[in-house]
């Protein structure tokens, strides 16, 4: 196995890196100066048979084409929107991701964002630390329990968010490509109606051509000045300039964001707002889950190179 070349696209997780290093011939793309990358890929293209990518750095057609012996792309993420699946399929390249092991963490973060936005947890914590409590009370926030929650995308993560929100007495409704007859929640075949009928809208679907900017001006208007938006999907799900202006103009009550259109850049006007919570794409960034995700990436690679069925193939 030590002769099999694996290209690691960016720093991800030290445990994963160490294991890849010990099991394979590991190439670290980010250690090459940008001007030398083409040369580097050319000189190692016969050895590199696998690529490990993540939510931030994907695998486009250009990279695929420069690695003629590429057999498998294993992503350290559940989303695969940054991988050119079509090209991989054309070339018979397998693609794997890390579903299920991170469902709980992302769902937990979704609920954490709802609570943090509505109950102003971060501003309150700042209020205490600055000593301002001695001068008077913080003021009132808004209740979470029993508020109607609308979920965009009722897959593994969306369902896990729904289950948690129900325990807070929230009614659940959702929008997805197709209705899920086994799910006991109200279905809306369009996202505007969903937004009209909830006060907390959660984006939990995968990013595809159809879902890009699925949260646009019309949806934000329907959600309204008392509504809040939670995004644990991808930044591109939301028309970010529209979101920013809605928040600045009070046309939306608040937002909890873990993802942005151009990470790690966060729209500057958001940095000053008290009614938003801003996280740096940490949906699955716990020790427990990163270990499980790493093990799954390794399991997929091992299975492939030992001609066994892949644990979590996308294609």
């Amino acid at each position, binding site marked *: 196995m030590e002769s099999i070349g694996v290209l690691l696209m960016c720093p991800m997780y030290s445990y994963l890196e160490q294991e890849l290093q010990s099991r394979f011939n590991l190439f670290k793309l980010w250690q090459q100066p940008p001007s030398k990358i083409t040369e580097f890929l050319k000189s190692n293209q016969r050895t590199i048979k696998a690529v490990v990518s993540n939510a931030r750095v994907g695998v486009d057609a250009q990279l695929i084409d420069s690695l003629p012996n590429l057999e498998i792309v294993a992503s350290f993420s559940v989303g695969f929107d940054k991988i050119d699946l079509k090209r991989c399929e054309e070339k018979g390249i397998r693609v794997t991701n890390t579903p299920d092991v991170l469902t709980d963490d992302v769902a937990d973060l979704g609920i954490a964002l709802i609570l943090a936005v509505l*109950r102003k*947890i971060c501003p309150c914590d700042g209020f205490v630390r600055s000593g301002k409590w001695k001068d008077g*009370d913080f003021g009132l926030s808004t*209740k979470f329990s029993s508020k109607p929650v609308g979920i965009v995308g009722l897959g593994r993560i969306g369902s896990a968010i729904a289950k948690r929100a129900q325990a807070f007495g929230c009614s659940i409704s959702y929008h997805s490509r197709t209705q899920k007859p086994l799910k006991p929640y109200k279905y809306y075949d369009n996202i505007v109606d969903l937004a009209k009928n909830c006060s907390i809208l959660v984006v939990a679907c995968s990013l595809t051509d159809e879902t890009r900017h699925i949260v646009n001006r019309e949806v934000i208007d329907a959600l309204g000045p008392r509504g809040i938006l939670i995004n644990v999907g991808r930044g591109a799900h939301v028309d970010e300039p529209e979101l920013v202006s809605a928040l600045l103009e009070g046309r939306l009550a608040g937002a909890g964001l873990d993802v942005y259109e151009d990470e790690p850049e966060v729209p500057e006007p958001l*940095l000053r707002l008290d009614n938003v919570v801003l996280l740096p794409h940490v949906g699955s960034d716990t*020790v427990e889950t990163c270990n499980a995700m790493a093990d799954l990436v390794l399991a997929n690679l091992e299975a492939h190179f030992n001609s066994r069925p892949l644990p979590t193939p996308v294609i």
Partner: protein
Amino acid sequence: MTCSSVQVQPYLLEALEEKFTLHKLDTTTEPDKAARFLRSHRDSIRAVVGTAFVGADAELIDQLPNLEIVSSYSVGVDKIDLAKCKEKGIRVTNCPDVSTDDVADLALGLMLAVSRRLCPIDRYVRSGLWSKLGDYELTTKFSGKTVGIIGPGNIGMAIAKRAEAFGCPISYFSRSKKPACINYNYCPTVVDLAANCDILVVACALTPDTRHIINRDVIDALGPEGVLINIGRGPHVDEAELVSALLEGRLGGAGLDVFQDEPNVPEELFKLDNVVLMPHVGSATVEARKAMADLVVGNLEAHFLNKPLLTPVV
């Protein structure tokens, strides 16, 4: 009819002013001024509206000879001298139930915020460090952690119900086993509970028995990976022990909505990333406070109309 009240929300003040002659007692100014104020109104005051911060102690009760009812704008009545009220035939009411959900929500909010380091990470993004320094360090998973509840009353049970949806096994301590907790693991002592859970939540009422129920032994049992959540009262916890445990890494983290001497919070906690500090906002939502205000006024009206009290304690 007249009332004396302290630092309450405008909605409640307006309702009280509309129906009664309201005297506002400002306990934050010099004691002499407060004393003079009480002396000049002592005979006309027949009701007191207290809060979680300032209630009706023996001294106040003695200064108001015509006091008939204390209606507390809170669930907790630990700041009211209940024995004295009973002695003098003074009725006491509180606001149970209407803020249960909000307090339970905040307990979960604190558990999630501590585990996932929400506040330091939000600050990290706001200070531009994400693009400068890269990713924040990994945090800890919440789902599936064992939650231990001290006091499985209305609030405790509401917390348990929510935590269960995150796959958290529930353990609890109370003076005796509760039939409603049949699916939860009963622990006969608080130390036992602390040793057998990852996140310990204080959700019981403050009484002489529960003062400092969280002491050094309990903190040691909870341990360096354990998290303490306090949405009860500050005096439930030996605050000095808690602070040193956090500073020395003997306790993994804490989410605190209440403190020994509010609004004073031990400043050594301010530099810690593994604590979340809230200014006693458990029931501080628009919705809960409106419902509580309605109960305060409703109880007062019932009393003065000789109708049964809505939510009597004494």
